[in-house]
């Protein structure tokens, strides 16, 4: 990647210098008034960067993303502390609609397609906030179809009846249709065939480099996430326990062992993993 972005990354971790496109400051999230989930998460996404958000199940990745895109309220959750700034401006009390207009869009975990709409209609709903007129929308639609030829085949069938992976593609394509500047990707690789996973991350890279779209992606597939990301945060039940540039993280032994499965003696077969290895926690 270019020097410029690399520089951005380094500063991202150390605040106050050149403002990143997204800055999350020590936020705390509570569900149902009682369940405390995020206990002060801070992170930053540099302009044109790809930042990975890693962590076990229940660490709070999805919650973090929803806190940013303001989808929490719909889950009876609320941000009780901290701030979220986009381009240096607080976005906590904007509606998701405003955010999308400003170029922040989330791809929700677990698809959430509009079951009764056809695949194509699903994609078109993504263009709801667009104003450049039909032509531009049409072009992007074609773009999405290039990315996911499979969708073109199924374009006229109801999304509710498409396969898991197809739905995942629809969800991502739908987000792309909003012409975003910052995409919050929640588990993009989930349920996708290997080569498709590669493709998706290739798409991410393309958008990032060609169109300068920034990404914050919550991903379980650490290997590939770190391969494409410039910077990474690791979440453990509601706290950031580790952060750093992708390469550095990849070199970190703990990460190697617990997230990449590369123990000293190299990758070992799932068959041989000894049972229920107690996790080493950073707290």
């Amino acid at each position, binding site marked *: 990647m270019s020097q410029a972005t690399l520089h951005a990354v380094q500063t991202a971790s150390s605040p106050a210098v050149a403002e990143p496109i997204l800055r999350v400051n020590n936020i705390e999230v509570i569900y149902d008034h009682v369940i405390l989930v995020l206990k002060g998460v801070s992170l930053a996404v540099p302009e044109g960067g790809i930042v990975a958000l890693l962590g*076990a199940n229940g660490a709070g990745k999805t919650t973090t993303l929803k806190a940013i895109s303001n989808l929490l309220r719909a889950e009876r959750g609320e941000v009780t502390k901290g701030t979220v700034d986009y381009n240096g401006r607080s976005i906590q009390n904007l509606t998701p609609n405003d955010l999308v207009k400003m170029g922040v869009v989330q791809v929700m975990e677990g698809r959430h397609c509009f079951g009764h709409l056809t695949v194509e209609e699903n994609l078109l709903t993504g263009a709801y906030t667009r104003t450049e007129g039909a032509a531009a929308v049409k072009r992007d639609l074609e773009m999405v179809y290039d990315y996911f030829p499979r969708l073109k085949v199924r374009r006229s069938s109801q999304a509710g009846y498409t396969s898991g992976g197809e739905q995942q593609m629809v969800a991502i394509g739908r987000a792309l249709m909003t012409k975003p500047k910052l995409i919050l990707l929640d588990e993009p690789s989930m349920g996708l*065939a290997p*080569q498709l996973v590669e493709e998706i991350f290739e798409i991410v890279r393309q958008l990032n480099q060609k169109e300068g779209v920034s990404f914050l992606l919550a991903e379980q597939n650490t290997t590939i996430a770190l391969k494409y990301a410039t910077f990474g945060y690791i979440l453990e039940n509601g706290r950031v326990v580790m952060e750093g540039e992708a390469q550095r993280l990849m070199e970190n032994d703990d990460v190697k062992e617990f997230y990449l499965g590369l123990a000293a003696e190299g990758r070992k077969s799932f068959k041989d993993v000894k049972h229920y290895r107690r996790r080493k926690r950073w707290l």
Partner: protein
Amino acid sequence: MSSTAVSAASGSDAFTADGRHKIGGVILSVQNISLSFGGVRALTNISFDVRQHEILAIIGPNGAGKSSMLNVINGFYHPQEGKVIHKGQERKRMRPFMAARAGIARTFQNIALFKGMSALDNIMTGRNTMMKSGVLAQAFYLGRARKEETEHREFCEKIIDFLEIEAVRKTPVGRLPYGLQKRVELGRALAAQPEILLLDEPMAGMNLEEKEDMCRFILDVNKEFGTTIVLIEHDMGVVMDISDRVVVLDYGRKLADGTPDEVRANQDVIDAYLGGGH
């Protein structure tokens, strides 16, 4: 529990060296299944066998028809052509609950837990088919009902320990993170003590560590109870490591069928599915 496994293993010739049940004869075979929805041909003339005690993986690109295949096996989809032969007898248009009662349990790709219920209750429902006490007995929690409840509760607790979800026993599953939900779902399937266990992408959305645990569970189940396992998974690492045989589907067709190594070597499979990465 591995200890018991070992003791089970020792001596008897029904077991392999590492204490697994020896792979036996064909327990379920699908023959020339064709399934289509309106225009979409989800499956065309698919045949393969599932052998007792084996771990069979089904892989293939998205939309290849893997989940549909499982749906056919447990009677949720009714193929236009072909038949499913379970334990030597052909199954005519059967309803899903019959499959369940015949010992075929499964988990789902898009988690299908009972959102309003606690993890424990979800797992208990897995044993509903075995509970017999009548309405009145239940209404006044008389002997039989009480006895049943406690017995089955104990079994479910075993599973809960096994899957390490004691902590969230009483939590409504809706609130659990994705990964744990997948585990609870597995628990629900196990509770039925099935002969055949169909798993649809059990490790989707898990990080490595959790995948390792999940593999462990699957292997242990197979070892412990000799449960036959049919598994859909996109993580080649997992598939190649833990499965005895692999069936590869590609847009409704069967591409290949063999041991992991054979499949890995198969050029069509590489082109259609594995891609450069592997």
